[in-house]
Structures are given as C-alpha cells and as structure tokens.
C-alpha cells in the first residue's frame, strides 16, 4: 500500500522556479508518467518524493503520513537516476547488492546472491556482473541502475528516464518487464519519460508539467482526448497534434484562436482543398504531409495509399479541439 500525495509543493533554486504549487495525489498501485520538456520540473518532483530535496512550501504525504521530515532511507523508496550514478569503485554485482546490504536491511548473503542473479537475469546483464561499473556501455549502466532499484521489493519506485539510453529492442523488452514487475508488486510508480509509447502503454496516470506547474493530471486517454491546453495536447501523440488557425475550417466557435487536429482526426474526401507535400510509407501506416493554405499538417492514411507528392485532396476536421489565444482549451 502506498499512496503518494504532494500538497502545494513549491521549490525554487535562486530565481529559477522548479516547482510551482504542485498538488497531485498518486493512488496506490498507480503508474504515473510525468511529461514535460527539459527543465519542466520532472526530476525535481521525483526528488521531493524521495526526500533528496525538500520543498520550500508544501508537504509530501505517503499513505496519509507527512514524511516531509523523513530522510530518504526512512521513506523507503527506490530511485533510478537520470545520470545512472553507479558507484564507480564497485563492480556491477556489488552495485546491485548495495541496497540489500544497507544497515536497514542486512540481507543474508545467500538471499543477496539469489536476488542479484534474478535481477541481472531480468535486465539481461548477467554476463557483466563482474565488470567494474565504469567498464560498461551507457545502456548497460542504465540497466544496472534500474537493477539497483529493483533488487528491493518496495512500494514506491521513482524512475527518471530509465530506458532512454537503450536501443529500441531492449527498450520495448524492458518496458514490458517494468510494467509487469510494477503490477505484480502492486507498487506505486513515478516515471519520467519522453517516449510516447512508454507514456501511453505503461501509464495509468499522466502528469503534465509546464515550467514547474502541474497543468493536467489524469489517465493518458483522457489527456489525449481532452487536453486542457495546446501545451498538454502536444505532449502526447506521435505524430504530434496539428495546430492550425481556427478559421481555416468553417464553423469555429466564438473566441477560438486555433484548432487542434490529431493526425487520425482528419477526414479525407471532402472539405478544404490541400496539396500533398510528402508521403512517408512506414509499413503499418502511411503519413501524409499536407499543405493547407500554406499551413503544414500531418495525417495518416492506409499503408497502400496510391497518393503521391503534388496530388490534391480535400480534408475536413473530425472531433476537433479548439483553443483560445492563450492556448487554453475552449471546447
């Protein structure tokens, strides 16, 4: 059982605002993906929960208990650092065993051996166990770093872009592994990623951060379909949502400044006339780059589309999103 709750957390570094009045309740067993560009405050959020950093204002609660004064060890969380932070004077095996050997746990030796072997197997680094931590590739370091979090069966895991240095194959393997482990432990996860697939497939909740503000928090589907702003809408979806002036199509509601159209929300056949600028055949889908009165947009069509550069076609919006001049959603 671990419900994590941030209440009105603010944190500044000098005159940089890292977190600005963030309130968020992460239910027990939730998998929260934090989204936002570099500098949005994702890492700072994880550091607040871990206790490595303290808020200027606000409280952190774990299971309703105020842990603001607890040390990281007392909070009993595991964290995968963005920069790996493997102990350079230790071997991979010793790195993985390190949390189990803490004075708090004092795990018996045979239990350590078993756990380390199991985690190494899961992360496909068994053959590197006797390497020094500094004698690894970036992807291997990252897996050791994940392993160091997973050797302990905890209730709260914090992972800061844990799969970013892995190649596509490993990344998709480990995505499934991590999700499986999290589900089977019933653990609560806070997870930072820039990867669309990770966000959509792993998350039960997505938190969108913008310059230290939590602008939207909810299930990924909801944020995808019902974003509160252009900013939130642009965080999810690949190719990205098309943002055009509201008046390129008729029937825009009053006050609408821009229209947001997901690539799959563009009907082909009738409506405004566009020119095909580029066709990308990706195998399972085909991306059409279109030009509408000088505005670029991307849509999807079936894999065997005969369309070619220079063709014209008519399009119309389906379930469009409208935003005002500030980029906030109106309908």
């Amino acid at each position: 059982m671990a419900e994590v709750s941030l209440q009105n957390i603010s944190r500044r570094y000098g005159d940089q605002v890292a977190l600005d009045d963030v309130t968020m309740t992460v239910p027990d067993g939730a998998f929260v993906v934090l989204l936002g560009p570099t500098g949005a405050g994702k890492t700072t959020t994880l550091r607040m929960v871990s206790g490595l950093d303290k808020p200027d204002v606000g409280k952190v609660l774990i299971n309703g208990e105020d842990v603001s004064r607890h040390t990281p060890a007392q909070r009993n969380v595991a964290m995968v650092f963005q920069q790996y932070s493997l102990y350079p004077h230790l071997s991979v095996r010793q790195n993985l065993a390190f949390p189990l050997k803490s004075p708090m746990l004092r795990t018996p030796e045979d239990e350590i051996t078993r756990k380390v072997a199991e985690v190494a197997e899961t992360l496909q680094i068994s053959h590197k166990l006797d390497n020094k931590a500094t004698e690894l590739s970036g992807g291997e370091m990252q897996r050791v770093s994940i392993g160091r979090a997973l050797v302990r069966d905890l209730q709260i895991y914090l992972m800061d872009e844990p799969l970013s240095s892995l190649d596509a194959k490993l990344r998709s393997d480990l995505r499934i592994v991590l999700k499986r482990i999290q589900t089977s432990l019933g653990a609560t996860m806070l997870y930072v990623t820039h990867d669309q697939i990770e966000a959509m497939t792993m998350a039960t909740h997505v938190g969108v951060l913008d310059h230290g503000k939590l602008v939207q928090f909810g299930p990924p589907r909801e944020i995808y379909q019902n974003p509160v702003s252009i900013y939130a809408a642009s965080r999810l979806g690949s190719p990205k949502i098309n943002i055009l002036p509201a008046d390129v199509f008729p029937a825009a509601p009053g006050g609408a400044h821009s229209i947001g159209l997901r690539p799959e929300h563009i009907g082909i056949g009738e409506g405004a006339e566009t020119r095909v600028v580029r066709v990308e055949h990706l195998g399972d889908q085909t991306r059409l780059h279109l030009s509408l009165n000088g505005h670029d947009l991307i849509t999807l069509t079936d894999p065997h589309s005969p369309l070619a550069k220079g063709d014209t076609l008519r399009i119309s919006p389906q379930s469009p999103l409208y935003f005002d001049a500030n980029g906030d959603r109106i309908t």
Partner: protein
Amino acid sequence: MSGFSVTEPSRRQKWIAGVLVITYALVTIMPLLWIIATGFKSPEDAISYPPKVVFQPSLEGYVNLFSSRTRITESMQETLQPAETWYDQVARDSGTVIVGASRYGQRFLNSVVIGFGSTFLAIVFGTTAAYAFSRFKVPLKDDLLFFILSTRMMPPIAVAIPIFLMFRQLGLNDTKLGMILLYTAVNLSLSVWLLKGFIDEIPFEYEEAALIDGYTRFQAFYKVVLPQAATGIASTAIFCLIFAWNEYAFAVLLTSGNAQTAPPFIPTIIGVGGQDWPAVAAGATIFLIPVMIFTILLRKHLLRGITFGAVRK
C-alpha cells in the same frame, strides 16, 4: 617534418628524454648514495680526502650507532674476556668495548610513534573537515579555509616561542603526545586543502544514491566517499608523514630526552674521540627506511594522486 608530435614520441625523443631523466636521477641520488656508503666506511675512510669511492666495508658505523662503548684502557686489557658476538668483535677491533645499548633505538621508535600518530590524526581530522567544507554550508567557509591555510604562510619556527611556553604550561614539553598534537596541527592545513580538492571531485550524486539505497549520511560518507577518496588520502598521508618524519626545528626546541625524535638525535652521535660520521650516516640511512616503505606501499595511489584527480572524467 618537425620532430614535434602529440602522438608517439620518436626514437630520438625517447633517447633524449631517457638521458635527461637518468642524469637528473643521478644528481639527486648522489647525496643519498654518499650517505649510504659513508655508513659502511671506517671513521678514517669517512673523512679521508679525496673521498674514497672504493673502500674496505665495515660495520663499525652501525655497531657504534646502536651501542655505547668505552675505550679499552691498559688496566682493562688483562681482565677482558674474549669477544662473544660479532658486534663485540667489531668494537674490540677499534679499541673499544660495548657497555650497553645506545639511545638510537628509542629515538627511532619515538619518530615512528610521533610520525605515524600525527599523520593518522591529520588524515582523520583532515578528511572529516574537508568533507564538511566540501559538502555543507559552513558559515564563513572561505574565511575559515583561508585561515586554515594561513597557518602555513609563515615558517613554523616563527611561532616556536609561544608554542614552547604553551607546552610548558600544559606539561606537554618533551612528551610524545605534545609532538603528535603539534605535527597534527601543522599538517592539518595541508591535509584539509588537499583532501577538499579530492572530495570536491567526487560528485554528490553517489551519496544521494546511497541515501536512497537505505544508508545514512555518515554511512554514505564511509561506504561511498572514503573508498573513492583513497587516492587522495594516500598521497596526503605521504606528504604529512614526510613532514612529521623530517621535522627538525620544533623537535630540537621541544624535545630533549623522553620524546626526542631521530632528526635532532642523529647529529649528536659522538664517537669516542670526536664526531662519529659513519654512525651518523648509518643512523640517517636507517631513518630513511620507514618513509621509503610507506611511500612504496602507497606509490600506486601517489602517482594518480599527484595529478589531482585529472584522470577522473
């Protein structure tokens, strides 16, 4: 093609470098060889001019160093038993008889206790202070660091008189504890500054990782920082030991018997009938050995340490 390259040095460059290094090594090692050789000379050979390069080796210097002797008078000659040991025999050959051990052994032991004791303390206090300066918000940090360094800016002997008076009040004159404390204090500025440099090089992230992994701040220091600072600690320890081991001025002033170290003692070795140069040289030679062993043991660290962490990423 110029002979300048950042890649592999040419044969000629290697040759020139080799000659330079060997020449330099010969120049610096000459006095050392001289001392070692003198230790094995007879007193006459030791002061002969021109100096003898080839000589009849003798252990007289070493025997004299460790023993106190008296000249054999004619009246003694009749009652004297034959020499029982080889060192007795060496003494007899030069017309003396051993009447007991000299004080060199005890002075040497003082040097060991005071040298290693003060080095140990300078490292313990230096490491903890350097860690605090490196990691915590210490009020007036820069001023404190400057103050610590400033204790090194004047020659230590400039403060000898106040220290002498202080020691007399505190009953620390001519005690090993007094000398250990004094050398620790003098070495602390060096150890704090050197070690702070090394600890600054160790990113704080490793300690954060240890905090997450269930360790306390102190355990993180012990388990994560110390092992990574080993190089710096080893090279700092060598510098501290060399200072404490060779220190002469304070030792002359503050010790006379009980706690006297080897450096002020060695030059006072008087043989029967004048300065006993072979014994002095033997004393100096033996005195070199502990620092040499210590340095060789830590050499691997020293070489990396001297580059001040430049090899780290």
